[in-house]
């Protein structure tokens, strides 16, 4: 661990902190769409919004896959990404996306479009329909979480290496899912069930939870290693990222939606604006997390002073 205050040195041949540039905007976008789609599907399944479920699985299956392929150096070998689930979060994620897409589509067909009833609704068909419902929800939950684990698994970048990263993934995923579901299908999501609050109420709760998780993550990093502190400084004080973080992630992405949801009369326009604001903040957060990732200086030989 570095004890001196080293500078950020970019690609220069000087000892210091280096930006990670291996996971770029296309990877951040893939993660964003993966979490957004899974969150939307889950909220759709919980509140009975078929359109949200369809959009959710489509976003994950199409947009996430597209941006992963855009990032990948040899996309023709993408299938190989699934062969190491014993140790790689990318492998686990790949498998979960395949399971999620398959189970979600079958769930939509059998339960959403009533194919199970059309097929006679026998015991076997009903069992398969129930299984697909449970499996798609579990897979959606896994997809919502695994991105955070894939990022946090990297001990090389101190800011990422925190248990709060997967928590932030789930919180943001559920939040963006619920506000998008409110925009797409306000009628279906208006009322809660005996276990769930209304989607409007859930959005407010998730907004508060996400804000707390975000602040806790930054606070933990600021009290952590020098590399993590350097990343926090980039996020909050230095350079172009601070304006981006405070302006888009915090003000537009969290504060504005909270004000809109609390003060405005609930209607579709408010939900659309809220969803757009939260998604802008969420996407910015995903990109910024990759942009502020720093490698620590490898070893110092400066004499102790």
């Amino acid at each position, binding site marked *: *661990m570095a004890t001196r205050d080293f500078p950020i040195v970019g690609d220069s*041949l*000087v*000892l210091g902190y*280096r930006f*990670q540039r*291996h*996971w770029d905007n296309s*990877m951040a976008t893939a993660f964003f769409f993966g979490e957004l789609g899974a969150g939307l599907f889950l909220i759709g399944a919980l509140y009975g919004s078929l359109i949200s479920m369809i959009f959710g699985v489509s976003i994950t299956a199409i947009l996430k896959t597209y941006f992963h392929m855009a*990032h*990948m*150096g*040899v*996309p023709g*070998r*993408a299938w*190989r*990404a*699934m*062969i*190491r689930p014993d*140790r*790689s*979060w*990318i*492998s686990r994620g*790949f498998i979960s996306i395949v399971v999620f897409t398959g189970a979600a589509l079958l769930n939509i067909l059998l339960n959403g479009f009533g194919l199970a009833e059309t097929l006679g609704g026998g015991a076997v068909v009903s069992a398969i329909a129930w299984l697909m419902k449970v499996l798609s929800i579990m897979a959606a939950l896994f997809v919502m979480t695994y991105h955070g684990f*894939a990022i946090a*698994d*990297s*001990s*090389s*970048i101190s800011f990422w290496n925190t248990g709060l990263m997967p928590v932030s993934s789930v919180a943001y995923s559920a939040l963006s899912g619920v506000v998008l579901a409110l925009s797409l299908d306000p009628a279906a999501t208006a009322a809660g069930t005996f276990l769930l609050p209304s989607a409007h109420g859930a959005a407010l709760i998730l907004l508060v939870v996400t804000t707390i998780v975000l602040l806790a993550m930054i606070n933990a990093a600021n009290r952590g290693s020098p590399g993590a502190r350097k990343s926090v400084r980039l996020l909050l004080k230095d350079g172009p990222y601070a304006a981006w973080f405070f302006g888009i992630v915090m003000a537009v992405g969290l504060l504005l939606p909270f004000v809109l949801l609390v003060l405005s009369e609930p209607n579709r326009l408010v939900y659309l604006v809220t969803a757009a604001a939260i998604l802008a903040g969420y996407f910015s957060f995903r990109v910024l997390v990759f942009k502020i*990732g720093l*490698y*620590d200086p*490898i*070893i*110092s*030989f*400066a*004499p102790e*002073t």
Partner: protein
Amino acid sequence: MARMGMVFDIRRCIGCNACVVGCKQENSLPDGVFFTRTLSEDYGVYPNAGRVYIPTLCNHCEDAPCEKVCPSGATYTREDGIVMVDDNKCIGCNSCAVACPYDQRTALGKDLFEKGLFGEGELTAFEEQGYTRFTPGTVTKCDFCSERVDAGLDPACVVTCPTDARIFGDLDDPESKPAKLIKERGGRPPMPEKNTKPKVYYVT
């Protein structure tokens, strides 16, 4: 079985970058791709200022995080401890590059093999013969010049170093030069807090 590793003698390194050039030549590395770099560290304040040079390369960790996160099984460790990348299996996801605490992985963008070293779109004869060893889109790194090691030779950077600042050999052999140096002069691995068990050490 041997456990191949390297020792950097910081006292001897003069920052001439001959190792970097030797490595690029041996491995036909495209523009901007380095398997080894020599970093400098300045310290103190004039007139009591100084500079040290810190050579870096893949540390061929025993508990390699790059191997652990590789989803396609492309990264593997040979019996002699050299961490390799099978570019027939690599998908270019860059997970290994993100996981390596030493930032020693490089993605081979397709454009690297098109523009050439002189950026004019034409490859020199040197590039044409050398680039066939790479698969565009994959991720690459130092392999201790494994072909040379198999032939009983030292890596190119080691034989190029004019000051013998790089010492290569079997770390498990107590009579080998690197093992003796580590023992006698207290070799330090880079970033021991990352628990990767590097097979590269620094002595001062």
